[in-house]
């Protein structure tokens, strides 16, 4: 199925109208010696029922289809409310382009304006953009903003910031002569921000909850940063903001985070949505699109993309960022999800995560040879140390129907026996008990 409407008669009539004989003539402008005279060597076409079978078979090879997901490390198995799924998948949202023509785009524009308002509310800041690619990209853009603003070229990032975010930051800044320093974590699995040397830093990046699931003293990070004239960037899990102090309250200049947990499935890590919020004083340095309110020719409240002069299609080589296509549809879903939750629901979400994670800590921490590596407080994730190499253990538990991990050895040599365990509102205490029993069996087998 090629989804083309053209009948042979259409082809004939249209070719005639443009004065050509055959479809091949359309490509005469292309040097003949590079034109293909054979079909591409790609798999043959499948009819819709065949395609469905084929893809169901591939999807069916997910060896843990009815497994329970206790895996963490940046993407989480949160509940996607049916209403959010239904609304965000409305064809008018899903199959529309960037809202460059406001008269035909009030739906997307207002939904983005509402999303921005919700992000400002949870992060305690004044301006949010219409989304970036993912959590890592938000960190990168926040650092760029900070360095542009401070005119400095040094970044201090906590070792407890998601390692992938730090790697992406490294990649992005490599060409720009930026120095990225890492602040080590202490025995508590957090960075002692009072002890970090920040001389010359333009950007300081702290995360709470951090990669180990622990809450950090973000206030210490932001004041230390400010003391040295750096901007403070805080990585914050939006699902924690109903319960935990907002980055804004704690002095963050820029708050960023991964919004997947708000209305989007895990989808093997993408599409997710990068959240980005800051203070009004930085608005002209904000990357990406921003929906703004205005009035129309009749004085009627309306929404448009605003401050486009920041963006690549206007400022080109001097743009604040090169981002164009973003993650709008997931931003809309996240906005709807936050409105579905409201302040009470967001708080309840956090409460369930915290309490059940504590329960998991108790159940798992008392197993022979096991301990919760870092004391916490934890939000929805903890670091479990066992006598077994973490990646092996994760693989073995998968065999018992639990997706868990990752093992932290891949990121921290000294933690190769440590495993991340995430507990969202979807995980019940019974499921946690079951995980405990499965782990106990594995430990017994050694």
């Amino acid at each position, binding site marked *: 199925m090629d989804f083309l409407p053209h009948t042979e008669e259409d082809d004939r009539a249209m070719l005639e109208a443009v004065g050509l004989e055959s479809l091949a003539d359309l490509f005469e402008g292309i040097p003949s010696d590079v034109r293909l005279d054979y079909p591409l060597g790609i798999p043959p076409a499948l009819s819709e029922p065949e395609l469905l079978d084929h893809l169901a078979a591939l999807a069916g090879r997910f060896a843990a289809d009815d497994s329970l997901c206790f895996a963490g490390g940046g*993407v989480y198995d949160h509940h996607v409310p049916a209403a959010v799924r239904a609304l965000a998948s409305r064809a008018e949202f899903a199959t529309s*382009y960037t809202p460059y023509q406001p008269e035909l785009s009030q739906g997307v524009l207002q939904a983005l304006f509402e999303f921005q308002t919700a992000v400002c509310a949870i992060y305690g800041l004044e301006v949010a953009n219409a989304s970036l690619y993912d959590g890592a990209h938000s960190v990168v853009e926040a650092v760029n903003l900070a360095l542009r603003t401070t005119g400095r070229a040094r970044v201090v990032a906590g070792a407890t910031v998601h390692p992938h975010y730090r790697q992406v930051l490294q990649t992005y800044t490599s060409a720009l002569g930026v120095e990225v320093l890492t602040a080590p974590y202490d025995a508590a699995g957090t960075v002692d921000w009072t002890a970090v040397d920040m001389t010359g830093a333009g950007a300081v990046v702290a995360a709470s909850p951090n990669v180990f699931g622990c809450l950090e003293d973000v206030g210490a990070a932001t004041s230390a940063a400010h003391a040295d004239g750096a901007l403070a960037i805080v990585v914050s899990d939006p699902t924690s903001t109903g319960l935990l102090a907002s980055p804004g309250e704690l002095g963050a200049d820029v708050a960023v985070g991964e919004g997947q947990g708000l209305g989007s499935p895990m989808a*093997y890590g993408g599409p997710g949505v990068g959240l980005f919020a800051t203070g009004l004083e930085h608005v002209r340095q904000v990357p990406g699109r921003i929906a703004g309110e205005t009035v129309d020719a009749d004085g009627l409240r309306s929404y448009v993309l605003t401050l486009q002069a920041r963006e690549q299609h206007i400022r080109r080589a001097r743009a604040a960022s090169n981002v164009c296509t973003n993650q709008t549809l997931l931003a809309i879903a996240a906005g709807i999800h936050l409105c579905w939750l409201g302040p009470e629901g967001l708080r309840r979400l956090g409460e369930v995560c915290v309490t059940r994670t504590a329960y998991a800590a108790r159940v798992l921490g008392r197993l022979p040879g096991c301990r919760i590596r870092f004391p916490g407080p934890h939000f929805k994730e903890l670091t479990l140390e066992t006598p077994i190499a973490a990646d092996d253990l994760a693989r073995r538990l998968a065999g018992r129907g639990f997706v868990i991990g990752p093992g932290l050895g891949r990121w921290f040599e000294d933690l190769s026996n440590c495993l991340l365990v995430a507990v969202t509102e979807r995980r019940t205490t019974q499921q946690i008990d079951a995980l405990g029993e499965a782990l106990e069996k594995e430990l017994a087998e050694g």
Partner: protein
Amino acid sequence: MNGSPKDTPAPGRPLESSAGTRSSPRAVFPLIFEQSRAGRRAWSLPEPGVPNGDGSLDELVPKEYRRTSPPQLPEVSERDLVGHYTRLSQRNWAIDVGAYPLGSCTMKYNPKIAEEVAALKGFAGLHPLADDELVQGALELLATLEQALCTATGMARLTFQPAAGAQGELTGLLIMRAWHEARNDKRRRVIIPDSAHGTNPASVTLAGYQAQEVPSDRRGLVDLDALRDVLDEDVAGLMLTNPNTLGLFERDIQEIASAVHESGGLLYYDGANFNSIVGVVRPGDMGFDIVHMNLHKTFATPHGGGGPGSGPLAVSEKLERFLPAPVLAYDEVTQRWRWDEDRPDSIGRIHSFHGNFGINVRAYAYLRSLGPEGLRKVAEHAVLNANYLRALIGESFPTAYEGMCMHEFVSTAKGLKKHGVRAMDVAKRLIDFGYHPPTVYFPLVVEEALMIEPTETESKETIDGLAAALNEIAREAAEDPDILHAAPVTTPVRRPDEARAARNLRVRWHPE
């Protein structure tokens, strides 16, 4: 609440806007925040419910970590939430609503089957850090898609990490840089045509290069001599989209390629216009070394109101080792796919995980439903539709450059200036005829530009109707230009004031 007649939508306001705005005058569409009532709820979540609990919340999360005041989110019922966003969605244009001939955006039909398969639990439910053993089906899908896309572009390998075209550009430029540096060859400039898309120069800067523009010649193509003049050992490479942003095929591409290569530079292919040549000619065969694709264009994944997309970045063999880590590897012994992290020369990671996997699943579904013959037909009919439309409106809106176009073309409305009519007026008026306007005022090199890309999934009838509307608008412009100045009259809002939006900045709602 008042039920004054002002409540009824003004003429031309769609019904749903009246449905959405029972309360306030002149059919202002309320914000969800304005519908909040303390104590109302849509949320439905379990009790923490932990047997013989682990101490109170205060013990678990000491007060110094806690929020002092609740976030100002709306409190609404699920019924009102659903009503609000359903009505809001109806205030938006979309491919599923009608024609969307935005130049350079390739707004083609997004097959529904792709949505269905992307939602399968075996795809949507995968955790990105799950052991490779658990996700062999997903890895095989990616491997097959990688191979097919490399075949279509004439490249050796690719990375799926870039979430969109612009991120693909940066990835490609960083690879370009790594390649030069590996040869201890310091270069500082990257050449782009003056008609290039804004992301090109922006990405060049991000990659630590200086962007240098080369002018187009009267043909609308890269001026070969001008190019030769700027090429030297300081030039890292050339970024080109072919067909270019004017919808014209760079017929000198081979000369361009050898000129760039001779000067020691690399050739970057911006795949945004790949739709017009897929199955017909391969960037690799034209001499390109680096290629990004916008799967949300050529491979028909829904654009989602501005995203998500997917911008896989493909390279020729000599650049393979620089690709972001990890890359897919097949273990002949275990007959298993795995992620290979051991890539010493890699430029590093560019995405939190594996890119926009969900979008890649949709692109795979599209690819498999078309097959090789289907893909070539796509290019053929994208180009046929564009040239057909161009022929139908040529008198009213002449194209800026002569000769056949590819999948899109750039017309100029400067002929209407004498009536006091601008390209934007034409665009707004076209809305009243039931079509989304083309891209206006881009590329900048064309005065009063109307950049039109019908795409291959629009029927002859649709294009005939679009042409009839455009020709009619040209007539209106001559006879009664005020009709155009007043347009649109059929939309919920008319000509929002963008200058004012930037002046009195309101980028979030707060209670008056």
